[in-house]
């Protein structure tokens, strides 16, 4: 017996995408496999690393801890949705580039989405608040110093 597919519409970065997915399709996998939005990275798949973080109605959410079939009423923003309308880098992306906030880049999409929402809530974070903002995201390259610097820089650029 083949697995039942659910016809759903996901609203991602302002566009509607109609897809047919099995119920067990994680949102992270739906974004990557069904929508081809491979900017969302899959790391630990149990909510610890933060690489798959997307914005669900503006709030950072682990895409690996949610099924696509549960995301139907939400406005989803992935890292692909963070650039400017003309395709140039958004403020958080630009700050990461300026401050060398990434090396291998695997964790970066999760940081960018998390910080984008974090600066909406707190536009002028202190260094401590910037550290707190990224406390749920793991990076194995940078040692975090330049990521914290990028949060502060992004706050200036916004």
């Amino acid at each position, binding site marked *: 017996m083949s697995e039942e597919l659910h016809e759903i519409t996901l609203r991602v970065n302002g566009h509607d995408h109609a897809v047919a997915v099995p*119920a067990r399709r994680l949102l992270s996998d739906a974004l990557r496999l069904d929508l081809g939005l491979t900017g969302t990275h899959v790391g630990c798949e149990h909510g610890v690393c933060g690489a798959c*973080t997307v914005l669900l109605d503006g709030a950072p*959410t*682990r895409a690996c*801890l949610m099924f696509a*079939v549960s995301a139907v009423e939400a406005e989803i923003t992935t890292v692909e949705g963070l650039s400017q309308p003309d395709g140039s880098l958004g403020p958080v992306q630009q700050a990461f580039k300026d401050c060398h906030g990434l090396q291998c880049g695997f964790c970066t999409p999760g940081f960018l989405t998390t910080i984008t929402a974090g600066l909406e809530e707190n536009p002028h974070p202190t260094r401590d608040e910037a550290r707190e903002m990224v*406390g749920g995201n793991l990076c194995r390259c940078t040692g975090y110093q330049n990521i914290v610097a990028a949060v502060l820089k992004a706050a200036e650029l916004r």
Partner: protein
Amino acid sequence: MKPAPFAFVRPRSLEEALEVLGAHPDAKVLAGGQSLVPLLTMRLAAPAMLVDINAVPDLDRISCDDDGVRIGALVRHAALLRDEDAARTQPLLRLALSHVAHPTIRNRGTTVGSIVHADAAAEMPAVLALLGGSVEVASVRGRRTIEAADLFAGPLESTLAHDEIAVSAWFPALRPGERVGFAEIARRHGDYAMCGVAALVGPERTRVAYLSVEEVPTIVDLTGVAPDDVGEAALAHLDPQPDIHATAAYRSQLVRVLTRRVLEQAA
């Protein structure tokens, strides 16, 4: 890994959710998914059906009065943490919630889900137990209230029947003359604690709750114990368990240090 296949329903009303749950003995409730989805992904659980309650209306309400704080099943940890009325009515809620995981997990995870999930290392079951709160549950058979003292049966085991949905939890208000404290030690900020302690100090009684020490949240009465003796007095009632995160001896040391610390906070 990926979850095993399951059937999926997303009911639009509580009645519909209860009917489906009542008709499918191998169905499970999906709330925030922050505990359930990892279990499915690691294939530690493989229910035949998930009943996603996120589209059920009116379950996301927080209401406060002089008696306490009532939260619906879809109130996310983050919403309760932000709520000023709730923080005023019972300050222990905010104190403890700031230790529950990271903000991103709190955006999705529900406080009621965390309570009925009954993880011995979780903060909010211990808070509910210390305050003497309760959970209201519904099924096709009717409604009932489960007092915190009767809720936690074992590790990851609450006394909800399979066909019951927890619709709300109730936390008693802080009464005049009462003070609260909370402290925990985790390997990394936002991780589950190796030991956590919550205190409720009133004019007549001093009660302390321990999480991550035994297999269920444990309450110890420390009324009248001298400040220097609180750690040992608590340990006389506790049997700290070893696991991969901490030995029994280390947990005992955390009990000594944290008991003193929360009681100083609540003095």
